[in-house]
């Protein structure tokens, strides 16, 4: 009778039971191998045990293996998996395997392992991505769907706006004032600061060039024309998109996720009339004022440079500015800002209404409101530039 005894050390000694060590000893009797497992058979030890067991099988090719589990102190699901795997391997390799001294706890743990699941091939976790043509198709379809949604919302918004004009009392004026404050008053500091610095930079950079020709006197007119015609409305629109277009999308999107829109519909409210109209009206009302404020802030920034660096007097600066711009330009600029306001608020609300899913949906809608808003601003500004060229 041969009697081997060797110990296997696996894992690290810890106070945590799972991370204890597993040992096994081996005895051989008449071609039968008896292995006694002891200690912790867990996540941290099964790989080593499996390797050693396979080694024994390979070297000795026994006809029968008996595994004694009487000294096992701890066994988790991975330990149970090990026992099941050894059993299955035994079936395939044609030797007999027997577990002895398996207590109730181990039996219960073994009972949790679904053998059929182990035998079925792994379900593909990674879905094969769609091909190039499929992706182009998908994107195109979603783009068309997107455009259709925007157009249909635009139609609804126009209808509701007209309806509100004829039912002026039904407009939620409380909300309109609230959003006028949020979009307008709360936006003043950032719009003022950005425009002031923009005026300052524009005046400074242009003065560097104009100075060479002794044409400092043209700095005020350059700045005022640039601001009133283009930069004032555009800068304001960009900032309002970032501040308020995104906020509208997030607000309506969250209401959609929380079933609040459904609640409004079932209560008999029209969600566009109830939620979008006050926001659009408020934005349209405050945008021209914000644009004017932006123009004035830039003018002040330019004047600071003009007076401090270019040796212009305040009087000359103001005079030059007034000379350069006329009322028509200012009116066009204000009209442009109102058109942009409808687009920014409209697209913000529209993106909110299309939210599906949860927090991620709201995030996507917010991003999309800003991106689509900026895109529309540039498109509309280009159209204005071309049309005005012919007037």
């Amino acid at each position, binding site marked *: 009778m041969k009697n081997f005894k060797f110990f296997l050390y696996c894992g690290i000694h810890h106070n945590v039971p799972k991370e204890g060590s597993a040992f096994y000893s081996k005895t051989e009797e008449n071609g039968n191998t008896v292995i006694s497992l002891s200690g912790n058979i867990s996540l941290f030890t099964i790989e080593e045990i499996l390797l050693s067991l396979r080694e024994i099988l390979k070297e000795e090719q026994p006809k029968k293996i008996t595994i004694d589990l009487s000294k096992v102190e701890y066994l988790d699901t991975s330990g149970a998996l090990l026992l099941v795997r050894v059993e299955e391997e035994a079936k395939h390799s044609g030797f007999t395997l027997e577990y002895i001294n398996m207590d109730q706890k181990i039996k219960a743990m073994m009972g949790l392992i679904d053998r059929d699941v182990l035998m079925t091939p792994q379900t593909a976790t990674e879905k094969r991505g769609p091909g190039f043509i499929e992706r182009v198709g998908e994107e195109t379809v979603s783009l068309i769907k997107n455009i259709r949604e925007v157009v249909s919302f635009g139609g609804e918004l126009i209808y509701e706006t007209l309806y509100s004009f004829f039912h002026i009392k039904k407009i939620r004026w409380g909300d309109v004032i609230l959003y006028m404050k949020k979009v307008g008053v709360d936006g003043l500091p950032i719009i003022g600061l950005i425009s002031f610095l923009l005026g300052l930079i524009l005046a400074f950079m242009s003065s560097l060039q104009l100075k060479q020709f002794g044409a400092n006197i043209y700095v005020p007119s350059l700045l005022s024309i640039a601001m009133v015609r283009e930069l004032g409305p555009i800068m304001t629109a960009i900032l309002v998109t970032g501040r308020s277009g995104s906020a509208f999308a997030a607000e309506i999107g*969250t*209401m959609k996720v*929380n*079933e*609040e829109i*459904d*609640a409004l*519909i*079932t*209560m*008999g*409210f029209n969600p566009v009339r109830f939620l979008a109209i006050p926001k659009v009206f408020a934005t349209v009302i405050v945008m021209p004022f914000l644009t004017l404020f932006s123009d004035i802030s830039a003018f002040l920034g330019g004047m600071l440079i003009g007076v401090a660096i270019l040796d212009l007097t305040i009087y000359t600066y103001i005079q030059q500015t007034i000379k350069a711009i006329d009322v028509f330009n200012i009116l066009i600029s204000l009209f442009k800002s109102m058109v942009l306001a409808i687009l920014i608020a409209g697209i913000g609300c529209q993106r909110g209404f299309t939210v599906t899913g949860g927090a991620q949906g709201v995030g996507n809608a917010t991003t999309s409101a800003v991106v689509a808003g900026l895109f529309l601003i540039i498109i509309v500004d280009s159209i204005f530039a071309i049309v005005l060229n012919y007037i």
Partner: protein
Amino acid sequence: MARVIIEVVGLTAGFGDDIILRDLNFKVYEGEIFVIVGGSGCGKSTLLKHLIGLHEVKSGRILLFGKDITTAREEELMRLKQEMGVLFQTSALFGSMTLYENIALPLQEFTTLSQDTIDMLVKIKLAMVGLEGYENHFPNELSGGMKKRAGIARAMALDPSILFLDEPSAGLDPVTSAELDGLIKKINRGTGTTMVIVTHELESIFSISDRIIMLDKSKKGIIAEGRPKELKMYSPDPKVLNFFNRGAISEASRKGYKG
């Protein structure tokens, strides 16, 4: 026999190409508590959302007071909607408004009542659900059970003829859930409001329902209709028995039915 309030005829419902419910037929009578039950994912909430007109039907008709909501004109639909109150699964109270504003909103919008009357009505509705004094609280300052009760108060704002409740006791502890059941029953008995409730809570089903229909995911339709206690004992369908007996089919009751 009581008047028919809702009649569903051959309703098929689903999203896109997926059919969730096929050829549903049932009636809800005036004043009863009608409960739609079934396992998760069987289309209970989908059915409710179709009944309240949030989703378009694929085919079939939904008659509310004899008027087909699937073909009704918008003005008529608006009027019908004011006849129904809905408690959503998440309560769906407007987060930016106080409880007072939540409940007063439909009153201000759809009635010509004076501010005084509205104030009093809101107080009464809040007291009815045990939330007196919470007028100026915002929804996020309330517990789950309180939100549900506030949701019921808002749904009751216009004294609707039908109240739809989507899983009222979902996410509530057993005590709060039982209290809510008591409240639902109290409102039903007190006001005579017809109630259509979606739930899978057995205790609620037994304690409040007058009549139920049970939906099944694989059949995509109704597999049982009647009183829950009778279905529990005598249903010939093992799925129904299984549901009402918490998965343990009672052999005795099956034999009782057969014998």
